[in-house]
């Protein structure tokens, strides 16, 4: 279906252009056509178009937001939540994705009871996620190095009186280090974050269908992946409820292609 839609969209754009178009322009044309399908109410075609762009390796917060909205219109709450989470990972300041995600969660089947596990680490990560971690890390490296360079100069030439500047650099570098640490913590939590995409999945006590199951999770519920084994993933809900679900039932918010996920 996706391939057919991709082929149709490519053919349409090729017919319009009739010349070789650069990949970026072609991606924009496909995005426009998928948007037009969405706006005309043809969400199936819109989803096929957005998915085709993802298969081409395009990474864009707007693409993820629109795909999440299209899935939500189709009633596929799990996939909608997944792509809106990805949009927020790419752009934590995306208010539209955040609002749509709240809309998805309002309709979630699973309502968690009990205290949040691990002192609300997920909530903390949500707060820390918008921090400009990458810029802070670069600033930390630069200011830290500059501060030590000034110290070295001061050692070599004590009369230059560079100690004050060095201390100022270290103070600002300390602030940048705090931001970086917060952002790194949020990033580390996000790497383990996942969403249930199957309509319902039984959580077992072990990585096997034959293991006892005491609860089910339903599409759209966010959880944390802690381990993988034999086609199952060990997941933990925000209230600490833990079980093994089939790997296909949950999708990581940050796909393996986006980040180093070798250490789960």
């Amino acid at each position, binding site marked *: 279906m996706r391939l057919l839609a991709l082929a149709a969209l490519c053919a349409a754009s090729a017919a319009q252009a009739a010349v070789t178009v650069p990949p970026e322009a072609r991606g924009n044309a496909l995005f426009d056509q998928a948007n037009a399908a969405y706006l005309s109410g043809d969400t199936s075609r819109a989803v096929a178009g957005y998915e085709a762009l993802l298969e081409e390796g395009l*990474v864009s917060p707007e693409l993820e937001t629109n795909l999440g909205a299209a899935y*939500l219109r189709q009633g596929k709450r799990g996939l909608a939540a997944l792509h809106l989470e990805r949009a927020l990972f790419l752009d934590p300041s995306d208010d539209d994705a955040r609002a749509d995600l709240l809309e998805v969660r309002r309709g979630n089947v699973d309502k968690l009871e009990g205290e949040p596990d691990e002192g609300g680490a997920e909530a903390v990560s949500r707060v820390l996620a918008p921090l400009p*971690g990458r810029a802070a890390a670069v600033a930390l490296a630069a200011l830290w190095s500059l501060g030590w360079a000034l110290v*070295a100069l001061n050692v070599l030439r004590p009369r230059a009186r560079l100690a004050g500047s060095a201390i100022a650099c270290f103070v600002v570098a300390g602030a940048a280090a705090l931001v970086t640490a917060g952002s790194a913590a949020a990033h580390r939590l996000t790497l383990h974050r996942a969403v249930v995409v199957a309509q319902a999945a039984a959580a077992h006590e072990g990585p096997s269908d034959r293991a006892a199951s005491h609860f089910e999770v339903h599409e759209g519920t966010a959880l944390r992946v802690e381990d993988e084994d034999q086609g199952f993933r060990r997941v933990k809900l925000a209230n600490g409820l833990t079980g093994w679900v089939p790997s296909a039932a949950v999708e990581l918010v940050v796909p393996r292609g986006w980040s180093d996920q070798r250490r789960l």
Partner: protein
Amino acid sequence: MSRRTGSAIAALLFASAALAAEEVQVSARTDANEVALDGTLNLQITATVSSKGDQADLTLPDLKDFDVVSRSQSEQVAFTFVNGSPTFRRTTVTTVKLAPRREGQLTIEPARVTYKGRTYTTQPIAIRALPAGQPAPPKARAQAPPPLPDPFGDDVALDPFQDMHPQSRDLVLRASVDRDRPFVGQQVTYSLYLLARVNVSGIDKLQLPRLDGFWSEEIEAPQQLMGEARIIDGVPYRAFLLRKRALFPLRPGKVQVEPAEVEVMTGFGMLFSRTSTRRASQPLAIDVQPLPETHKPAGFDAGNVGSWTLTASTDPVTVAVGQPVTFRLVAQGRGNVRNLALPKLGQIPGLRSYDATTTDKSTIEQGQVTGSRTVEQLLVPERTGAMEIPALSMDVFDPAQKAYRAVRTEPIRLEVHAAPAGAPAASQAIAQNLLGAGGLRPIRLRMTRASVDAPPWTREWFWPLLAAGPVAVAVVAGAGRLRRVLARDPAEERVKKARSAARARLRGAEELLREQRRGNASASDFHAEIARALTGYLADKQGIAAAGMTRDELGRALLDRGHPPGTVRAVLAVLDECDRARFAPGGADLPSQEARLERAERLLGELDKLRRSA
């Protein structure tokens, strides 16, 4: 007059018009829609009016394509209870036997019925006339009088006198139902007839059975005994209808309907003796079928049985914000309207909804309970723009089709505009464009590429870069120190280290003293070490080469350096004692050696004190 009051009056007028319309029911039908040129068909026109005395005037249509072969008319007056109130219904059935004049497609024009100055018409009926001699479908064969098809296309109703053999009895009370295997919620018509071969002057004390397990509704309760001739087992009887009730089974299973009883009076007036006889009907068994499970919709309400249609409307469809709109949902059809569960209108963003009111109307139409349930709900738009009241759907089980089907309304589009300027102050409070939060955000039309590179702190260069600064500073500082060490004057270095070197020697002497106690060292070694400590210090620190001087020269050198004479004498004394002890063994015991060590330490301090003050 407020707009709401006006709406109420309009609703009342509409209701009264609807009531007037229900007073007269006119229908026309034929027993066939195809007829041979040499055959006949029966046209039956039924007019029912809700009146005891007034009659409806029937005007036959202009039958230009047909010849009227015969015409007959029958009339029946029935007393029924509708919604708890007594009603007379006069039904006139006119049967006309028609023969077609030509082949082809013919039309029976509408008949007209005039009642209380108003005219009601039937629907035109299309008839296909076949060539003469051509066998018409069995349904088109004219029999006199042919049984007309069930007006509702339902199951074939049971004959109330089927399997009845009164034998030689003159009076028989006969109870019957039109179907003995109904579905739950399907109408069963219970009839009670009195069959008589003698004159019946009246009845009394009619006792109907308890109808447990059914919802019942009166269809007919004749006030006068009107008999019709029936021949049963070759014996002529007069059949009097005493009661007719509609029963709606409430649960599946076998139900026994107990016998009815009545007291029948026979004979006439004073001349003939009047006798009273009590009669009881036979019990009836009804096997109520459960609704089929196959294709049963999820959440199906068991009360929704019958043939129903669902319509929705709003009045008005264009409205100012804050002004009320009446949403009306009507279910109409055949079945038990009181058990009907209508779909509910959910919350619609931008429309405030108030509690709904429900009105039921039930009527008897040709022996069948029909009716309507109307749900009215007041909606108040809270924002401007186009809104849509969604389609509503209701699943019903149609016993005639023996199948479930969904009846649904069409969505209704509502146009809401801003309240006109200068609207009354009272309505301005509600006439606001309330824009609530929520709902799906519009999609993004521009796309930006995002980087999913690993963050800097996970790169290989990040942590080494942070460590590089301190390491570099340490290297720089170390190099500077090394450079300073390498560039230092050895003489100056000796001066700086003179005291510590002298102390080190004294520690060595102390160690030798301990070794002496164990017998491993000699006193000469001890004194030599003390002498080296003092002379070494004087050489390194004071620049006095004591080893090559006499005691006098040393004393003068020390005095020249500014040392107090007492200190100088003490230094010389200690050196002398050491020389003596070294070269005259056995001359010094351990306590005197300890005292000498202490004096040497004190002297070093005194010598160094002068040096620091200098």
